[in-house]
């Protein structure tokens, strides 16, 4: 048995563009679930709208593909009505932070026992590359043709501030670490948020000097900086390199949680 058994084979290949990072993130998530040994009939995948949210449809388990931004609210209902179900929410940066921002902070506040995998590609991919709340300043998109002027959200920090029990950030290059991190999230009671920086070659890379898929992967590889190193630099007052992606485990705590599975 491998994580490949979790796919709905008849629905593959996915609708994702060539080189899209979402498929990688699904692999890592399913691999973590397979390692933990969750049963298929006890696992529910919930997602909203967007490229990331199509993930739930490729997995051979109960799955709920909902409305834009509302995945966490739907998941809250599923989990509270039946705490014995294990729930994974796939979402994207626009889905989670823009239209679903309110549900996001309140799900963190409730610390409800969900594992959220956020595929942050810094753009609205499915609608053709509009700026999102995580588009970095200066980046080009179809709605920021002169460069994004707004300050982006730091989703991991937001989740920590709002009260989530487990928060981490990795990239779609760091597949092994990501798999471990998702596993830690699955095993942590309470709200777990794993933010994954993913490449969107079609709508982000193409407009922002990443001509090839590999270029963006290379960027994530070279600009990723472990949280520990980042903190040390901050402490010493040394400059943070431009474009650094801070990765690693940001929070692991045991605040009171809601909807935790009842003891067997």
């Amino acid at each position, binding site marked *: 048995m491998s994580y490949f058994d979790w796919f709905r084979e008849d629905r593959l290949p996915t609708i994702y563009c060539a080189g899209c990072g979402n498929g990688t993130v699904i692999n890592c998530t399913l691999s973590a679930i397979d390692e933990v040994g969750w049963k298929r009939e006890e696992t529910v995948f919930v997602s909203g709208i967007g490229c990331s949210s199509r993930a739930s449809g490729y997995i051979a388990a109960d799955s709920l593909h909902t409305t834009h931004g509302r995945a966490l609210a739907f998941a809250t209902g599923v989990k*509270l009505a039946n705490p014995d179900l294990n729930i994974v929410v796939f979402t994207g940066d626009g889905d989670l932070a823009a239209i679903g921002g309110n549900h996001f902070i309140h799900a963190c506040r409730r610390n409800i026992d969900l594992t959220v995998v956020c595929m942050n590609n810094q753009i609205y991919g499915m609608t053709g590359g509009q700026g999102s709340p995580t588009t970095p300043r200066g980046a080009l998109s179809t709605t920021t043709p002169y460069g994004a002027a707004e300050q982006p959200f730091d989703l991991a920090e937001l989740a920590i501030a709002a009260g989530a029990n487990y928060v981490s950030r990795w990239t779609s290059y760091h597949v092994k670490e990501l798999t471990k991190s998702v596993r830690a999230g699955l095993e942590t009671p309470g709200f777990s948020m794993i933010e994954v920086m993913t490449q969107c070659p079609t709508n982000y890379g193409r407009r922002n000097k990443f001509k090839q898929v590999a270029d963006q992967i290379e960027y994530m590889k070279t600009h990723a900086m472990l949280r520990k190193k980042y903190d040390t630099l901050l402490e010493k007052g040394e400059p943070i390199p431009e474009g650094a992606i801070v990765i690693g485990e940001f929070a692991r705590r045991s605040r009171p949680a809601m909807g935790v599975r009842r003891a067997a």
Partner: protein
Amino acid sequence: MTRTEFWQGNIACAEGALAAGCTFFGGYPITPSTEVAEHMAAKLPKRGGTFVQMEDEIGSIAAVIGASWTGARAMTSTSGPGFSLMMENIGFAAMTETPCVIVNIQRGGPSTGQPTMAAAGDMMQCRFGSHGDYSVIALCPASVQEMYELTVKAFNLSERFRVPVFLMADEIVGHMRERIDVPDSVERVDRVPLEKGTLPFSAGKTGVPGFPAFGKGYGVHVTGLTHDERGYPCATSPKLHEELVLRLVRKVEDARHEIADYEIVNPDAEQVFISYGAPARSVGQVLHDLGNENVGHLRLKTVWPFPEGILRKFPDAKEFLVPELNLGQIAREIERYVDQPVKQLPKLGGDLHTPAELKAALGGLK
């Protein structure tokens, strides 16, 4: 056996839900529906159910739909502004055929309007509020007793037809206190589980597919996208979309005579009041005062799907009078089906029609 109570309409609604086996309530405070949520918050946990106060009405209906997919009988309650917020997910519930009950204690609109005054301005919104074509069921109680009975009925209809069912009450009925006979037990209809080996969205003759609850090993994919019988999205096939939408509409509309619930007084009358909700009480007073058989009354308890067949039960009718707490939303629906003149008696502002106003509307014939 029954027992007699003196309850507020909103409490009767919550008690009706509990009697109908409601196990999940997701809501958000809003006048004048809050008492429903408050009562559920107090009672549900003691019965092993779940109450959750969500961050807004969008979240409330989302949580209700999510809970319903685990097999729970789930409901929410709200009023005008919250009802508007729920619209997108109501369309989702219709598309995914999720049983759920939405109680709307209507207040004066548009916008924040009159939070503590009655209206029936959401009658069209509950039918057509979400985008695209679909069909729903809406019930209108006119008394505290009916707040109880129709809530039970709403659950049973939503389970049977797998559609969102609306209890379209108003502030008057919701906040009124009345004598109520509470039965010891109520009839309960449960959703039919999906037979193993059947495709999850294959409907068969009834038009209502079996329900594949989460956590039972069905491995069902539920999506708001146009989907085939397997539940897989296929959003670009014109034929598939047409078939799906037609089935969603027909499963309710074809059963409209079965769903129809109404009360008829004086079917041979020449002048007939057609009412639903609180104005029915004023009409009742008018008929009581006049004491003759020349004024009839059709009181609709089911407004959607509109039970147009009942209109033929008044063969001698020369005129229909429709008192409503809006600018004639259902009067226009009646006009579509009858040849006789339909006199609209709209009333805004939150007050009920007085019997004197209704008598005056009858004109010389009274």
